[in-house]
């Protein structure tokens, strides 16, 4: 999932949506995922996520994200099967049985995890961070320094992911077995990397803060913005679809 939050330039229908509409749409899909109980509805929401990916020209990224989450989901699904004791036993005998409720709970958990994780990441990958902070300041009256902090934190996720990847590469070249197939062993090897990652992260944050101050960051106010954000008809349609999904989540 390397680079999954990197901005993908384009002029698709999603790129043209107001950043606030995109946030609203992704929050609504997340809410629908947690409100909906029916697995079929949750699968439909995942389908909506993939459709968003296709509409935004980031379908490959959506599929990559889906595959990554699916791997994690298998682990979580098995945990649910093993630990949920209530319900009708399907396989084995109590207290070590796999129950119908265990299967249903596990299925809901993984479908919700996938359905709720994808939309915000996908919509952020078709939104410039400057637009996101701009709309937060202009429309929601969030003080610029907080909007900037939020968008910088989001912007740094792929940067840190790349830094971690580069550190793992360097350590592999030294002989650390990051190229092992065993995920548990790999996880254990990542812990010692906290030190170089922390050092490079703090250094980068320090540089960014210094650069921002040098450019008059502290003087910026809501009135400083040159770009004005206005809702278009597409935003209204997207907002209505988002509201409908939440309503469907409540009903199903």
């Amino acid at each position, binding site marked *: 999932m390397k680079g999954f939050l990197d901005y993908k330039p384009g002029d698709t229908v999603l790129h043209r949506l107001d950043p606030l509409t995109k946030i609203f749409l992704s929050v609504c899909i997340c809410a629908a995922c947690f409100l909906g109980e029916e697995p079929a509805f949750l699968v439909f929401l995942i389908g909506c996520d993939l459709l968003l990916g296709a509409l935004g020209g980031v379908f490959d990224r959506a599929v990559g994200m889906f595959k990554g989450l699916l791997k994690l989901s298998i682990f979580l699904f098995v945990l649910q099967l093993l630990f949920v004791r209530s319900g009708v036993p399907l396989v084995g005998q109590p207290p070590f049985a796999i129950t119908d409720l265990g299967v249903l709970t596990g299925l809901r958990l993984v479908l919700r995890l996938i359905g709720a994780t994808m939309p915000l990441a996908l919509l952020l990958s078709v939104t410039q961070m400057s637009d996101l902070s701009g709309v937060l300041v202009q429309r929601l009256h969030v003080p610029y320094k907080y909007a900037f902090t939020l968008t910088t934190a989001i912007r740094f996720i792929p940067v840190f992911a790349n830094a971690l990847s580069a550190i793992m590469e360097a350590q592999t070249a030294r002989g650390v077995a990051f190229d092992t197939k065993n995920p548990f062993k790999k996880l254990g090897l990542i812990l010692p990397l906290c*030190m170089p990652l922390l050092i490079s992260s703090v250094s980068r944050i320090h540089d960014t803060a210094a650069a921002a101050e040098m450019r008059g960051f502290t003087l910026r106010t809501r009135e400083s913005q040159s770009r004005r954000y206005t809702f278009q008809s597409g935003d209204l349609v997207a907002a209505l679809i988002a509201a409908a999904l939440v309503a469907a989540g409540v009903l199903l």
Partner: protein
Amino acid sequence: MIQFENVTLTYGGAAAVRDLNFTVAPGEFVAVIGANGAGKTTVSKLMNGLLKPTSGRVLLDGVPTTALRTSVLARKIGFLFQNPDRQLCKPTIREEIAFGLALTGRKDAAARTEAVLREFGFDGSRDPFSASRGERQRIALASLIAVEPEVLILDEPTTGLDYRECMAMMARVQSLNAAGTTVVMVCHDMELVLDFARRTLVLKDGTLLLDGETRSVFRNTDVLRRASVLPPQITRLSLRLGDRLQPADTVEEMEAAIRAARQKGVPA
């Protein structure tokens, strides 16, 4: 011995390197030069298995890198990255040097660590992250050298170093090479290439334009122009002076050439 046989590597449909064929023999000092994006780092990462070829083969002592994990290849190939902070991960220099040895399962790790600390003049109890950029690069190099790799790959090893640090680093690399270690150096500093590398590969857009003895490579101005590479200043001066002086690639050679020309009465 490292062999590239028809090696191509593509990223997302675009070729990073194309149809590369060359061999690096044991004990050689080879430089890889070219403009940004020419494929230099890709070539170096193909050598130690960090990247696997899309087609063709990269062989280390006759074994394809696809058959071995990079962490295993690390026992034979040391890789010094441009940014030492990616390699350093321990709270003291002693632990940092011992870490590489522990990874390769060396039984004499403790003694070897102390020997390398003495050799480089490091205080083993110091935090490597509190050292200067040049020192951190030397610590990273020391931790690689401790393992005594057969091949040392250097990716822009002197970036961010001052002249003194650069020369200290390269002197150590040169002595390793003299002792038999194969050195492959990716470098933008042509003066450094001229001073240390005996053979040079010139890359452009992932293809090998030229492979030859370093001095002759720097005199092939047509190929270097195509690769967007400027020869070292002293070579350019020598080339501009043309037939009036003997070819010279060092200050000493240039002085000798000028003296010889004066004796022959060549007009200034």
